[in-house]
């Protein structure tokens, strides 16, 4: 099989492009550059410049960010069909995360210039890629929000009530009989929690 057809078939395995005919696939193929990565090889490094996004066509990669305390936080793993690097490609800015291959991996790279050219030459295909970016970024935002909720939820503290002044009766103020000790099993939330701790301290 020629590389030409091989590349077309590789692209067809990506769900985003699976419904395209040969002509559209060839148009997309002409805009892309292929990249092969060894396990442990870094595709993007956080804070470095870059204007390409990639579609993973073989293998898998890990996405991580450096926390301010110096530890590496794994955000996600990406496999065949997934889009990576789309943020710096569309909205010029340094890479927001480090992406490293976990195994032998092949990606198809689309540069900002190639996407701009695609917008005027093949708007339907450009719309396909931009639409995918919108979906991917929305999904990642939701996942990140869920991760924040999950990791930072303090087990002993209920989320603060959404009450407004006047609806105090809905909350468990009845459990608060007199000043609670500073090391109460279930510290009270909100203002009374502060008061408890003040009393415990005094």
């Amino acid at each position, binding site marked *: 099989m020629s590389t030409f057809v091989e590349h077309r078939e590789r692209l067809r395995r990506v769900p985003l492009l699976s419904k395209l005919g040969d002509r559209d696939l060839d148009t997309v193929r002409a805009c892309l550059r292929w990249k092969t990565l060894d396990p442990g090889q870094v595709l993007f490094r956080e804070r470095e410049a870059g204007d390409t996004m990639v579609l993973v066509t073989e293998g898998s990669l890990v996405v991580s960010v450096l926390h301010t305390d110096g530890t590496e936080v794994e955000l996600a793993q990406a496999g065949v069909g997934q889009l990576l690097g789309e943020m710096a490609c569309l*909205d010029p800015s340094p890479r927001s995360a480090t992406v490293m291959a976990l195994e032998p991996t092949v990606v198809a790279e689309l540069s900002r210039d190639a996407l701009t050219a695609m917008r005027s030459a093949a708007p339907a295909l450009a719309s396909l890629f931009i*639409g995918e970016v919108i979906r991917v970024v929305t999904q990642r935002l939701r996942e990140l929000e869920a991760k924040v909720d999950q990791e930072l939820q303090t087990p002993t503290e209920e989320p603060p009530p959404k009450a407004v002044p006047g609806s105090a009766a809905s909350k468990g103020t009845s459990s608060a009989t007199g000043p609670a000790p500073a090391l109460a099993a279930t510290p009270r939330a*909100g203002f009374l929690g502060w008061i408890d701790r003040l009393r415990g301290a005094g």
Partner: protein
Amino acid sequence: MITLADLRALQPLREYTDAELEMLLGAATERALRPGQVVCRQGDLGRSCYLLVQGSLEVRRESGLGNQVVSTMRPGSLVGQIALVDRWPRGATVRALQDGVMLELTRDVFERLLAACSPLALRFQHQLAITGIRHYRDALRRLAAAPREAPNLDERPSRDSLVGVLSVVQASSTEWGLSVEELDAVEFVAQELPRGPKR
């Protein structure tokens, strides 16, 4: 009434042609904003998204990090589009901070713009993608800055933090005519105390 000139003045729309802005204006409905007005509420289902034309909006999110102001939106910003993209409930509550005006795009109009590949649709899609990317970057920054450990609730608050809290509480309870017990239902967000209580 929102005119073409109003939209022309918005920096995020600078790449739209006049004809495209006219089309956008024709497909949208004008909505006036009053200070404190809720544009959308976290947890609700999304029926529309909005383009802020005048005024400013505050975006607040209730999460594991507490009740945080996630961002403040200026004219030209798209608001509420995320719930239209993935049909999940609203991820944040948006309130007007001052008088203003915005354009409402219903789900129907939004989905037509998302599915088309006209120059207007492509420009709108590009703007949507950039907006989503910037939201995600903000969320990443908040996560990177967040404490890795949950705060220790047994730790005694510092004298300074208590003085700040108590002076605000004193002022607010007088203003609202509230007892100490009623104040338990009021949400306190530590970072905001120096600027006074939010309602």
